[in-house]
């Protein structure tokens, strides 16, 4: 690693900019023959995946030991405000994340996109690669101006991607909501940068780092950043767009938004709170921690009652973002008490979870894409039994499912383990109140993690297991080879990080070194982590995997050798009924019922029950979000009312407008005279 970084120390940033430019070029080439699927999908998307691998590689280089931050000033921008770019460990880590997950998604997309799905493939290719390039530029930006330009490009290109099937009213609505929330968030960020320059009116991050803000202004900047990035990441109560926009988009786009774009928001939060603001008083951390935990629990509970597979995953993304922000808040909190090591542990948990989530959530979203193509169904109530028709997708999705549920020895477990370890060390915080409250956070994390298991059994069980709920599912076909390669790439990432967690933590060490000036303790081997001390806690992914595999293999051999492997195929036990129909299985609603029952106050439930004498009795239940009805609809009503009031001025008659001009003139004359 060291040799490589010495070799490329001066060229990494240039190479990265070249890669970003080639993404844009690939996108533009899509327009050349925008309707030839062989050109756009089979040629350009794999090229994009190669570029993504390059981005990941460059990111990895920048995480090597002894890598100094590189900066550069681009030749373009506003006349006297050229674009500044910078590559340091924090950017490098997020580029690694972006490239690794992006490569898998692009390969999958190469096999996924086809004709007749709204936007022409060539245009889609342009939007897709602009989206990727803008995310990379957000991460590389070193001045507020480039940051906002890239940020807005990211929002706009993803908006167009969300509304690929723009003829469907539901998708138009989802797209509008997304655009609206994206801009409300962007407005907050704009104000945040307005505060951050600290009166110097210099928009480079360097001058913001150097600026000294009064505590009140720093707090204002932090709150604005939390709002702005929270809106993009989907923190409660700014999450409402997420479960609408994610399902509306084509699956590779959902995967990019959930796996990558939400992480870019996490990057922004880290950049501003730790790097530009140098962290702050403890209540910043406490606030972020609380918001994160509420978001996590909220997301998990809502995911459990969803009946649309992509909405379910969208809520699960909200949950995971909550966990990431909770870890981030914990890091801020510990940093405020100058407990660097603990802050580094929490930050490592946040970053590792971000990386893990990028991998397994992309994997699952892509798997739903394959299911969607094979069955044309998104509703869980009409799926089932696909493990027999789509063994590849089902097997690879199982890896993602188990990772998301946080089970050892896969990657989701490692980051939750780190997070719990971080929470468990908080009683040493020198503050009588906080050191008691924070360990309770561990209780919420534990509950959320367990709920994630529930959600994942529902997700996997209803889609892939059981009997097909519709006859048409018998014709479902497995994914093509490009899709399989994309899925397998992400699944491999999940397994490798789970088995070699220290290798992932080594990549993160550079980031904690940059932001906090300290690193957590290294484990004794790439597969063995012991972040605080061997005696306190250690986890060894490889040995655990080998131990389990060893026991399983030994049992298998023993049973087969001592006894036999004879199997008779028989129909399942039908409880004495004449036949066992697929309708008898648990539905998605049924599977979520216990959660609906237990967490009743979380939901706004509308129910229609059949009456005793109904001719065609039917049962309908609608589960809604309190925030939607309690916060957003009233807000929308107020805005509508204000707009109506203003429209009183607009009468559409020339005489009245002339009168306005006349009155204005009079008023001005009064002032002047």
């Amino acid at each position, binding site marked *: 690693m060291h040799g490589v970084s010495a070799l490329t120390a001066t060229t990494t940033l240039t190479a990265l900019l070249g890669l970003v430019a080639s993404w844009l070029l690939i996108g533009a080439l899509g327009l050349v023959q925008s309707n030839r699927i062989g050109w756009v999908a089979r040629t350009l998307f794999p090229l994009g995946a190669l570029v993504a691998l390059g981005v990941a590689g460059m990111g990895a280089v920048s995480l090597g030991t002894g890598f100094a931050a590189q900066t550069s000033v681009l030749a373009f921008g506003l006349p006297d405000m050229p674009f500044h770019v910078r590559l340091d460990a924090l950017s490098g880590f997020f580029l690694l994340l972006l490239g690794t997950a992006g490569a898998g998604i692009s390969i999958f997309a190469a096999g996924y996109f086809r004709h007749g799905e709204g936007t022409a493939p060539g245009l889609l290719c342009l939007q897709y690669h602009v989206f990727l390039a803008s995310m990379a530029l957000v991460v590389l930006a070193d001045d507020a101006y480039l940051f906002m330009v890239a940020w807005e490009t990211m929002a706009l290109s993803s908006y167009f991607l969300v509304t690929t099937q723009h003829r469907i009213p539901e998708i138009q609505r989802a797209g509008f909501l997304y655009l609206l929330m994206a801009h409300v968030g962007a407005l907050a960020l704009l104000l945040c940068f307005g505060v951050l320059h600290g009166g110097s009116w210099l928009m480079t991050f360097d001058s913001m780092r150097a600026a000294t803000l009064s505590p009140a202004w720093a707090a204002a900047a932090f709150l604005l950043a939390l709002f702005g990035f929270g809106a993009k990441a989907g923190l409660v109560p700014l999450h409402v767009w997420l479960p609408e926009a994610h399902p509306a988009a084509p699956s590779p786009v959902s995967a990019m938004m959930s796996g990558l774009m939400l992480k870019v928001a996490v990057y922004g939060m880290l950049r501003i709170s730790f790097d530009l603001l140098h962290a702050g008083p403890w209540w910043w951390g406490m606030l972020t921690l609380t918001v994160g935990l509420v978001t996590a629990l909220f997301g998990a509970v809502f995911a459990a009652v969803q009946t649309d597979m992509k909405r379910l995953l969208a809520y699960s993304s909200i949950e995971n973002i909550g966990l990431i922000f909770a870890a981030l808040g914990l890091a801020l909190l510990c940093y405020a008490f100058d407990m660097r090591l603990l802050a580094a542990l929490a930050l490592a948990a946040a970053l590792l979870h971000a990386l893990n989530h990028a991998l397994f959530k992309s994997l699952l979203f892509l798997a739903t894409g394959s299911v969607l193509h094979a069955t044309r169904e998104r509703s869980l109530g009409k799926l089932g039994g696909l493990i027999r028709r789509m063994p590849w997708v089902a097997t690879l999705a199982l890896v993602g499912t188990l990772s998301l549920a946080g089970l050892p020895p896969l990657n989701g477990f490692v980051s939750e383990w780190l997070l719990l370890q971080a929470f*468990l060390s908080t009683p040493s915080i020198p503050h009588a109140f906080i050191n008691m409250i924070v360990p*309770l956070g561990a*209780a919420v994390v534990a*509950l959320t993690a*367990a709920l994630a298991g529930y959600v994942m059994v529902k997700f996997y069980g209803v889609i892939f297991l*059981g009997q097909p709920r519709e006859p048409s599912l018998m014709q479902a076909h497995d994914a093509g080879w490009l899709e399989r390669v994309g899925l397998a790439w992400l699944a491999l990432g999940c397994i490798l990080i789970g088995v070699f967690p220290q290798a992932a933590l080594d990549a993160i060490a550079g980031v904690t070194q940059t932001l906090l000036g300290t690193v957590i303790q290294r484990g004794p081997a790439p597969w063995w982590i012991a972040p605080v001390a061997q005696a306190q806690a250690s986890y060894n992914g490889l040995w655990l995997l080998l131990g*389990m595999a060893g026991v399983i293999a030994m049992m298998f051999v023993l049973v087969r050798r001592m006894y*036999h492997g004879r199997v008779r195929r028989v129909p399942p036990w039908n409880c004495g009924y004449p036949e066992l129909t697929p309708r008898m299985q648990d539905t998605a609603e049924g*599977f979520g019922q216990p959660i609906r029952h237990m967490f009743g106050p979380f939901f706004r439930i509308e129910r229609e029950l059949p009456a005793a004498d109904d001719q065609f009795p039917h049962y309908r239940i609608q589960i809604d979000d309190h925030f939607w009805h309690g916060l957003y609809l009233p807000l929308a009503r107020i805005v509508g009312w204000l707009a109506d009031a203003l429209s009183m001025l607009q009468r559409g008659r020339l005489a009245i407008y002339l009168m306005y001009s006349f009155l204005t003139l009079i008023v001005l004359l009064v002032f002047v005279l």
Partner: protein
Amino acid sequence: MNALAPVSQLGGVVLAVALAPLLAGWVAQCRAWLQSRSAPSLLLPYRTLRKLFRKDAALATQASPLFRATPYAVFGAMATAAAIIPSVTTDLPLARVADAIALVGLFATARMFIALAAMDIGTVFGSMGARREMMIGFLAEPALLMVLFNAFLMFGSTALPTIVKGTLDADGLTLHPSLAFAGVAFVMVLLAENARIPIDNPGTHLEVTMIHESMVLEYSARHLALIEWASWLKLFNYACIGFTLFVPWGIAPHTAGPSGLLLAIVWLLVKLAVAGAVLAVIETVSAKLRIFRAPEFLSMAFLLAVLGLLVHLLLQS
């Protein structure tokens, strides 16, 4: 680590796997006595296993590979869990591989696999059982974690052998109020997680009440044998976790020689006998709860464990 470590490590797992059916048989015997029935043989579980292993497996026509792999996965998770619980000695090389949080993770893995396999065939009972099991699980798992965190806060380690050492090295008997809360919570979790009354009844096949049994209804022969064995092993593991946290006396320290290990095994047997009898008494004197009451029971366990955490932190400051 002394030279005996690999032996005691491997021996511990073999002992757990071998003794688990005995514990199940003992609990069943005690229950029968308490209910004035003539008790089955102590060795009945072993005979059941032999019988099941010999039979031909009857597999549902639509069963997927996941269904066939699950019994092995569940057994593998439980046996691995047995390897990191210091039931006989604290000298476990593998205990550094996975700590208490990983232990909970292993239990979760087993639960997830068994729930998925239950949904695989697509029968009524399977999916119902899976749903109920996950409902119990998602409340019991955090409760167990909280119980373990109580011990963590006391000894500053999530590694179980360190926790044991912490208690054993303490001079004399100190009473920790937080452990009282944690202890009650732990017993509640143990009952729920091991399909015991009042949450579930291992001896029933009555559709409205069963959870565990309805999930494994489609399993037969060697697969069923492995599942049953794994669930006995789970009970054994839970009992040993309880000993580790609350009554670690008798567990051999790092320095123990062969005679010390033998003595520790005798201690373990005594503790298991008492724990099995207590379990039988609890099961006999309590009535099965309605399934809708199970969440209340488990939330109570969760809250008790969290309360223990708070009590510890309050008393400490």
